Structure formats: structure tokens, C-alpha cells
């Protein structure tokens, strides 16, 4: 029933199939390119909005090569004064990288945090994703020693998940350090 397996047939068939498939994929890619970009942008916007005070314009993503910082956004009020920063910060947790979006006010106070991605243990470290838990609530307006209490700081760790809590705290600390640096340079420029 199948066609003869001569070299010409095989080459023809493989080439034709590859060409048709590549063409289909090309079309689908072009059609979905915009929706994919929109979805990614919407997700980024949502995660930024979650950790910043309401109102104000948010800048384009800015990059920097500080350790563990994936990029940051500056929020400015109508008259151009910087009101807050949103920083994407990554550290190594218990099961893999933990990436947070951290909202920081110009004076170095944490406004709010959210988890972008993680691979912590379900039921233990993964509790850091639970909105409204006491671990997450403590970050709202946090200003203090950025280390878990076991290490002499002011952060209440998640029960039985010290490594995750440390990673979370370190990610916040990275973000705050970045903002402290940025806020310093901004005032110098003005």
C-alpha cells in the first residue's frame, strides 16, 4: 500500500513533509506572535501592579548587571517624581531558583512582594506563594534587618522551610540594595 522506498521517493517525501510542516509552523508563529507578546506583557504588568502602590506611570523594563537582578521598573507620579521601584530578583531556593517581584519605595522600605516562579517543595517551601499568609503579610511595609530570625534578622521564617525563607529574604535584600543604590544616584543627579 505504501509507496516504493526508492531513494528518490524517500528524499522527495521527506523534503515535502518538512517544507509543508515548516510552512504551517511559520504561519502559526506569525499569527500567535502578537497574542504571546500581549500575554507576556499583561502578566508582567499584573505582577508589577501587585507589588506597587496604586497610580503613577510605570517605565519600560530596565536592565542592570547586579547579581540576581533580572530587571527593574520605575514608577513615577504625574510630576515626574519617583514613587517606587519594582525589581525582579532571583536567588537559589531549596528546589531550584526562586524569582520574586519586589516593590520597593525610594527610601528602601519594601512595599509588597510576589512570587513569579519557584520550584519549592509543595506544602513546605511552596507556602511562600500563599497570599495573605503571615510570612507574606510581614513584607508589606517591611523595613528592618533583612535576614531570618535564626540568622539574627527580623524576618519570621516559614515553619520547617528555613532555606526557602532565606532565599526569599535574600531576593528581597538584593532588590532593596539595588533600590538604595539607584535612589542614591538619582538624588545626586538632581
Amino acid at each position, binding site marked *: 500500500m505504501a509507496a516504493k522506498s526508492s531513494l528518490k521517493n524517500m528524499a522527495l517525501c521527506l523534503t515535502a513533509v518538512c517544507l509543508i510542516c515548516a510552512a504551517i*509552523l511559520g504561519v502559526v*508563529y506569525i499569527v500567535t506572535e502578537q497574542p504571546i507578546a500581549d500575554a507576556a506583557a499583561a502578566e508582567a504588568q499584573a505582577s508589577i501592579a501587585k507589588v506597587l502602590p496604586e497610580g503613577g506611570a510605570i517605565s519600560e523594563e530596565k536592565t542592570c548587571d547586579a547579581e540576581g537582578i533580572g530587571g527593574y521598573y520605575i514608577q513615577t507620579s504625574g510630576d515626574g517624581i519617583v514613587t517606587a521601584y519594582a525589581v525582579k530578583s532571583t536567588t*537559589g531556593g*531549596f528546589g531550584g*531558583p526562586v524569582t520574586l517581584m519586589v516593590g520597593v519605595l525610594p527610601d528602601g522600605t519594601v512595599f509588597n512582594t510576589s512570587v513569579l516562579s519557584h520550584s519549592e517543595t509543595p506544602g513546605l517551601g511552596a507556602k511562600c506563594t500563599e497570599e495573605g499568609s503571615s510570612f507574606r503579610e510581614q513584607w508589606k511595609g517591611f523595613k528592618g534587618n533583612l535576614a531570618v530570625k535564626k540568622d539574627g534578622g527580623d524576618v519570621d521564617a516559614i515553619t520547617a522551610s528555613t*532555606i526557602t525563607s532565606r532565599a526569599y529574604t535574600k531576593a528581597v535584600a538584593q532588590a532593596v540594595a539595588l533600590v538604595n543604590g539607584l535612589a542614591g544616584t538619582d538624588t545626586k543627579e538632581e
Partner: protein
Amino acid sequence: MEYLLIIISAIFVNNIVLAQFLGICPFLGVSNKLSTASGMSLAVCFVITFATVVTYLINQYLLEPFGLTFLQTIAFILVIAALVQMVEIVLKKVSPSLYQALGIFLPLITTNCAVLGVAINVVTKEFTFGGEAHMLNLGEAAVYAFATSLGYGLAMVLFAGIREHLAGNDVPKAFKGLPIALVSVGIMALAFLGFSGIV
């Protein structure tokens, strides 16, 4: 130091079979006897390491510069299929004895999701070994792939050992064959859970 962490993490902590669920089909399929299990492990080891390096290079120098990363899946699977064929042909010529040992397993490896899984993981995921999250470079990718396949071999050989013993035991009828094997793997995975958090 970093390489050591990669190796320990890939073999024990994130064991490809017991923690990542990749390559389960051949894991269950050919683990009846210790000898076939070790043969399969060797062949997988060969192909995973080789395929990861090649797909890494293709991704970095062909797909990324031209913005074609959406073709990743299709390109990788073709490369792996071609590679397996090539390994088969070369082995036949260069080392007939090795070919005799691995021959029957090689064609099966194309559809072993461990190979494609590791290749895709290496180019898309950030890894943390000793703190910093980063993408792997070529050397690290090769070591990671090799260590992962060692982990595959370890799980496979251990499991084959268990199954050889199971075969001689009086197992309830409904449990015969795969069910009891799966329950054993579950208990093994439970033991491997103890490694988590080391790296």
C-alpha cells in the same frame, strides 16, 4: 566545586527518573534483568551526553540568532533521531562488540523522553548550583547531561536488582507485573526524597 554540585544534584537530588519522571517507559520496560538494564543505561548515557551537546550548540548558534526558538521541539527531536542513527552506524563499524551489547536498545532511545527532556531543560531552564541562578554554559551542560544519565543508570540498575528479587516472590495476583513494580519505585523514590536539599 560547581561541577561537583552539578553531579551530586543530577544523580541524587534531582534524579531524572525518581524526581523528574523522565524516561519512565524504558525504565519500566527493560528493567526486568540486571544485564539488559545496564546495557540500556550505557546506551542512554552515550546518547544523552552527545545529544545535549549537539542540541545546545544548535540552539545557541542556529535557532537563537535567527529567532527560531519556536522550532526547538521539532529541531531537537530530528537531531536526536539522526544522532541515534549515526551512533548506531558508527558503533557497528568501529566497535562491533559494543554494538552487539547496545544495538537493540539504540532505536528505542529516540522516543526516550529523558533525552529530549534533558536537551530542552538545559537550554530553557535556569539552574542554581551553590546559590546563583543562571543558564548553563556548554561545559556545565555536558557535565549535567552526563551526570543525569549516570543517575538514570543508577536508578535503573537498583530497580532491576529489586525486580529480579520480586520475580521469585509470592506476589498477590492483582499486583503481579507492573503494579508491584510501581509500588517498589514509589518506595525507592521516597528514599531518594531524603537527598533533597543537599545541594
